[in-house]
């Protein structure tokens, strides 16, 4: 009787494990399938020429250089605008702000901002940066819009990373005659940096792949030359992909998948860097 019971339990456990394994397979297979499909279809399009020349023949031939450069500029612009501001805000929230209704309101706002659909950011950017501030459809307007979208991600991640640094380090540093700012600069920030970097990269990665926020604020359908200033509009990989997939008749499918592959590599590369930073910091961490 007892033995039966034991065997039953064993069986239930085995079934449980099998179910979990099945769930894991069900999530992993489509992802691998997706990548495999895009690589298989897109890889033949990839060549030095594809990466370094302008599109030609109404974008049906040639390369995608302006889209690559544009996405690079937009990501860079977003980083320049959102990273310092985001980290400063996180330092304020984690290290200086007292817990009161103002900080609670700020936190609620940040959480809710992260949940707003990206097209809403696009409309907001159009109203504020393009029209009201008269920055026009430009890299500047698009970067500002992407920054607003990225800021909540950076602030939350950075605040969490700062709070994860043990309180005792702060107490010790202060007790040795450190000011609050010295403590932050010499101990807290360096210790939190890998966590902050991970958040920053994940935020920028999302910005790099978005279409809707740049649609009305800075993305161009086609430009015959590379943007020369922050006030120029620009082509960008995600929007370019949208354009050549839906707006251009008789588009060679190879170029579409080639473009998708470049975008994925760009975004995934950032993700890999973030993972690398995180795992290296974990190994080196002393607390």
């Amino acid at each position, binding site marked *: 009787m007892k033995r039966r019971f034991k065997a039953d339990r064993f069986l239930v456990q085995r079934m449980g494990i099998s179910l979990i394994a099945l769930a894991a397979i069900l999530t992993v297979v489509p992802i691998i399938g997706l990548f495999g499909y895009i690589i298989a279809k897109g890889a033949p399009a990839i060549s030095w020429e594809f990466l370094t020349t302008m599109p030609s023949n109404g974008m049906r031939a040639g390369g995608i250089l302006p889209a690559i450069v544009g996405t690079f500029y937009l990501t860079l612009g977003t980083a320049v605008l959102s990273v310092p501001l985001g980290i400063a805000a996180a330092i304020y929230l984690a290290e200086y702000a007292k817990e009161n209704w103002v900080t609670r309101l700020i936190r609620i706002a940040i959480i809710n901002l992260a949940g707003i659909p990206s097209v809403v950011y696009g409309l907001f950017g159009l109203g504020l940066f393009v029209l009201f501030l008269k920055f026009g459809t430009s890299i500047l307007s698009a970067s500002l819009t992407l920054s607003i979208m990225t800021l909540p991600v950076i602030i939350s991640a950075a605040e969490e990373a700062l709070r994860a640094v043990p309180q*005792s*380090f702060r*107490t*010790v540093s*202060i*007790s*040795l005659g*450190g*000011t609050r700012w010295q403590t932050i600069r010499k*101990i807290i920030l360096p210790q939190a940096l890998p966590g902050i970097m991970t958040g920053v990269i994940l935020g920028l990665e999302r910005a790099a792949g978005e279409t809707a926020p740049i649609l009305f604020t800075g993305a161009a359908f086609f430009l015959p030359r590379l943007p020369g200033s922050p006030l120029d509009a620009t082509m960008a990989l995600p929007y370019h992909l949208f354009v050549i997939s839906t707006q251009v008749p008789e588009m060679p499918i190879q170029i579409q998948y080639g473009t998708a592959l470049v975008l994925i590599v760009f975004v995934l590369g950032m993700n890999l860097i973030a993972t690398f930073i995180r795992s290296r910091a974990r190994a080196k961490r002393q607390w």
Partner: protein
Amino acid sequence: MAAIKIIVQNLSLQYSDGTESLRDINLDIPANNITVLFGPAGGGKSSLLRCLNRLNDLTEVQTITGKILLDGENILDPKTDVIALRRRVGMVFARPVVLPMSIRQNLTYGLELAGEKHKSKLEEAVERSLKLAALWEEVKDRLEEAAVALSGGQQQRLCLARVLANQPEVILLDEPTSGLDPISTGKVEAALQELKKNYTIILVPHSVQQAARTADFAAFFLQGELVEAAEGKEIFTHPKEKRTEDYVEGRFG
């Protein structure tokens, strides 16, 4: 009787959750002695230590009244330069907290905060403080190693050395040996006996035995009240108060 370094006058402290952790404390702390603050948990010993270097500024304190005179100056005065105060009054905590850097960097941290850049001065401080904390022989060849690699006992002596590198006048120690083995404890206590020649030492011991072993002067705290303060020899052999006697003889606590 030795010169008085610190005078605590009518000190009362209430945390913002309403806890009254110190009630009208009056205490003279002599220079170049080990003064022991002892008593059962929650008596207010740590609270008093954290007043002495204004570390309480970091916690939610509701009201604090009275005076603490360090060489005659009231350090509770809002105009006090707390940074300078914390250099003069260093603190060692119960759990050794080494900063996530090398042994050497741990030792020079306080001086560098103060803007000391001369290599020779820093070098000199490292050696001097390690010798004072009886750690020099054990770590002199591995100063660039991460401080977390040290044993618990070594880490705690490093924390003591780190305070000493700042050249303080007063050293506060809050149960510094509570996590240490008897040998490490012995080393810390021996170092303190040596240090008291040049420093004012205030120690919260982790046991009555340690209190009796180390105290030149001792003050017994019970639920925020200072019950009795006297020379160590006195208080542990002929306590005046019944409550002190009960505690010292182990009838409660």
